Structure formats: C-alpha cells, structure tokens
C-alpha cells in the first residue's frame, strides 16, 4: 500500500455551491506533499473531510488505507489545523505534560530540542501566546508524537519569515524520520522549496498534480518574436497549454512537443526563439487563468 491519503470523486455541497466538485487525489508515502490552492479553493474542506470533522456529500476517502473516521488510524496521524486551537488555560509546560502520556511513541529528545529551537516560554499560558508561538507549540505537540502521517492546514499562516523557515525545517526533519507530510498552503514559494509532490486545486477540482521535479522538467515557455505574427491557431497542438499574443511576441506554455514548437520559429520566419524553464508560481498562475478562460 503506497498511498497514504486517497480520495475518489469527492464532493462536498454547502447549500447550492460545491466546495469540492469531484476531487481525486493521492498522497504517496514518504513524501512531502504540498496542497496548493487559493483561498476558498477547497483545501480546508478536503482536510476536514479527511479528519472526519465534516461529512462528504459523495465520493470516497481513505487515510492509511482505512476509511476516514477510524479511531485506530486517528492515533497514527498528527494534525495541525488552521486555527491552532489548544487548551488555552494551561501553560506551555502543562499542555506538553498533559499530551505526552497519550502517545507511547513520544520522543523526549525531540521535545527538548524543539523547546530550545522554538524558544517557547514554559510558564506562559497558552492564551497569552502569539499566533506564531501557538503554531510552534502545536507543531511541537505533533512532531514529538512521531506519527506516520502529519497533516497541516496552512501552517505558515501568521508566521514571520524566520518562524516560517524554522517551521519548514522542522517538517523536513520529520520527513527524514519517515513521516509523510501533507500540508496545505497558498504560498507557492514554500511549496516549491520543500515539496516532493504537489496537488494544486481550484474550485474543488485538481488543476495540477505530480512530482515537482517532473513538472519542472516537463513545462517550458517558448517565446517567439515575429515581424508579422501568425495566428495563434498555428501553434495549437498536443501539449500546448496556453498561447498568448502580445504585439510581435507569441508566448507558448507547453508540457509536450517543446522542440516541435521551437522549430516552428524558423519555419514561420520568427526573428527570435527563446525557450525558458517555468517556475511553479508561473505555472500555477497560468493554470488558474487557463481554467477561468475555459469556463
């Protein structure tokens, strides 16, 4: 069993609107998986269904091969939610001491190290912690458990750049211990930095999915400059995602047949041909635009 999270044709309806409109995703074991999407694209809804906090309208979802809602599975996964809700009347020391006995796999050395790294004030009440501090405490409580799967909903939300980097670093360290990480974010940069695999969704559907390295190697932008540009239709073929005409320049985003497209340049008397690699941010923005153009 390689997939840690699997959904098939998952839908969720709130009133007349579909927050999820047939979402089929797979989270491979042992990987850091970035769940990318704009606000309102359905990320949190998906995570809530996986955790059995809300019911799906239709479709299937499994965690570690079991249907969602299984208590046995719940023990094997860690979760840090968007709101980072914790027992606010306890101090940092108390909440750690309270949580520890629930988990036989608790790692004391991780606890000691993270307390130092995160500079958490042991005697302060949780209610008096800043948002960044609460995130770090929530992370600590989850990372010490050494779970098989760690799900995080927008973990960098409200963190300053230094804290965000520390947070990412702690995820990387946890991944090195074999934990599968599934984290949602609308920050392309952090996903680009640490993810092995991405799942990008828009309007409750998968827009882009795959190994990040594979996507980086697959997509190219070809820029062609003409005295008299041919119609965009001249470039329509398999693998072409978008053709944009800007004055004398035709810019083509393609995932296949890049050579063939570049070779059209000399054939159609282009003045210059330029092939560029494409970052995730550009790819994401183009896909969102393409999505809107289609609908």
């Amino acid at each position, binding site marked *: 069993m390689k997939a840690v999270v699997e959904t098939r044709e998952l839908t969720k309806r709130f009133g007349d609107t579909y927050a999820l409109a047939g979402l089929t995703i797979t989270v491979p074991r*042992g*990987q*850091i998986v970035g769940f990318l999407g704009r606000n309102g694209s359905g990320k949190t809804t998906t995570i809530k269904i996986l955790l059995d906090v809300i019911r799906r309208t239709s479709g299937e979802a499994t965690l570690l091969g079991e249907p969602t809602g299984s208590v046995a599975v719940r023990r094997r996964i860690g979760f840090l939610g968007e709101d980072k809700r914790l027992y606010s009347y306890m101090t940092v020391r108390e909440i750690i001491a309270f949580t520890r006995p629930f988990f036989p796999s608790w790692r004391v050395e991780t606890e000691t190290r993270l307390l130092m790294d995160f500079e958490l004030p042991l005697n302060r009440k949780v209610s008096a912690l800043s948002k960044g501090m609460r995130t770090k405490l929530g992370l600590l409580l989850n990372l010490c458990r050494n779970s098989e799967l760690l799900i995080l909903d927008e973990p960098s939300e409200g963190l300053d750049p230094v804290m965000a*980097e520390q947070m*990412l*670093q702690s995820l*990387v*360290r946890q*991944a*090195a211990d074999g934990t599968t990480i599934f984290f949602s974010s609308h920050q*392309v*940069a952090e996903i*680009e*930095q*640490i*993810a*092995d695999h991405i799942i990008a969704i828009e309007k409750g559907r998968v827009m882009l999915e795959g190994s*990040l*390295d594979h996507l*980086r*190697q697959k*997509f*190219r932008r070809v820029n062609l400059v003409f005295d008299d540009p041919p119609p965009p239709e001249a470039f329509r073929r398999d693998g072409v995602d978008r053709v944009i005409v800007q004055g004398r320049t035709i810019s083509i985003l393609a995932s296949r047949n*890049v*050579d063939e497209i*570049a070779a059209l340049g000399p054939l159609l008397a282009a003045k210059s*041909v*330029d*092939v*560029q*690699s*494409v*970052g*995730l*941010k*550009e790819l994401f923005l183009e896909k969102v635009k393409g999505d809107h153009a289609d609908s």
Partner: protein
Amino acid sequence: MVIRLNPSSGIPIYLQIVEKIRHSIEIGALVEGDQLPAIRTLAEELVVSPNTVVKAYDDLEQEGLIRLRHGAGAYVEKGNLAKSRLRRFREASVVVKETVRKLRSMGLSDDESRRLFEAEWIEKAAAR
C-alpha cells in the same frame, strides 16, 4: 561547501545540488576522501526535502563522483573518472574563455551571450 539554491527557478532542486557539488569537486573545494554531509543534515541545512538530497547523491554516485557507503555517509570518490573530468573541465574552461572573447569582439554584451547559451541548453534539456 556553501550551497545556495534557487527553488523558484524552475530547475529541479536536486539538479541544482548536483551542479553545486560537482562544481566544488571540479574546483578542488572537495577532494578525494572528503565526507559529504549526511542526507538529513544537508536537507535540514538547505531546508529541502530529504528525498531531494537522496536523488542528488544518487545522481552523483551514478556519475562516479561520490560513493555512498551504507550507513556511513557519502564520500568524494578517488576513481579516475573524477580526474579525467577535472582535466576535461580545465580544457573546457579554455574553450569558454576563447568563445567569450570572440562573442565580445562581435559586439555582443555578456548578457546577450548568456541568454543565447541558456536558450541553447534549455532546448537541449527539453528535448531529453
């Protein structure tokens, strides 16, 4: 060894790491027998996925530049391959110097030349 990465460049991060380590070996910053950082250490330091470092080390081992000893880390390889590459690297740097001189004499700015080179490489990479 200092490795700086550019995650948003669109070039796979493992290839960027391979490139940096290869370069360190070629210029002699890393020599035969030197130990490379452990996978988790480098992943933490660069804040990238451990799988990315594994991929980079596997690539370097395939090239014969390093050797992975199970559980004992990665070492810069002594083999002839690295030496012949070093020689080739020196020869190539002469060719590059000559080419750059020629391009300048043609009136191209360094920036223009760089763009021409990059376009050429990316087309090749895309063709693979």
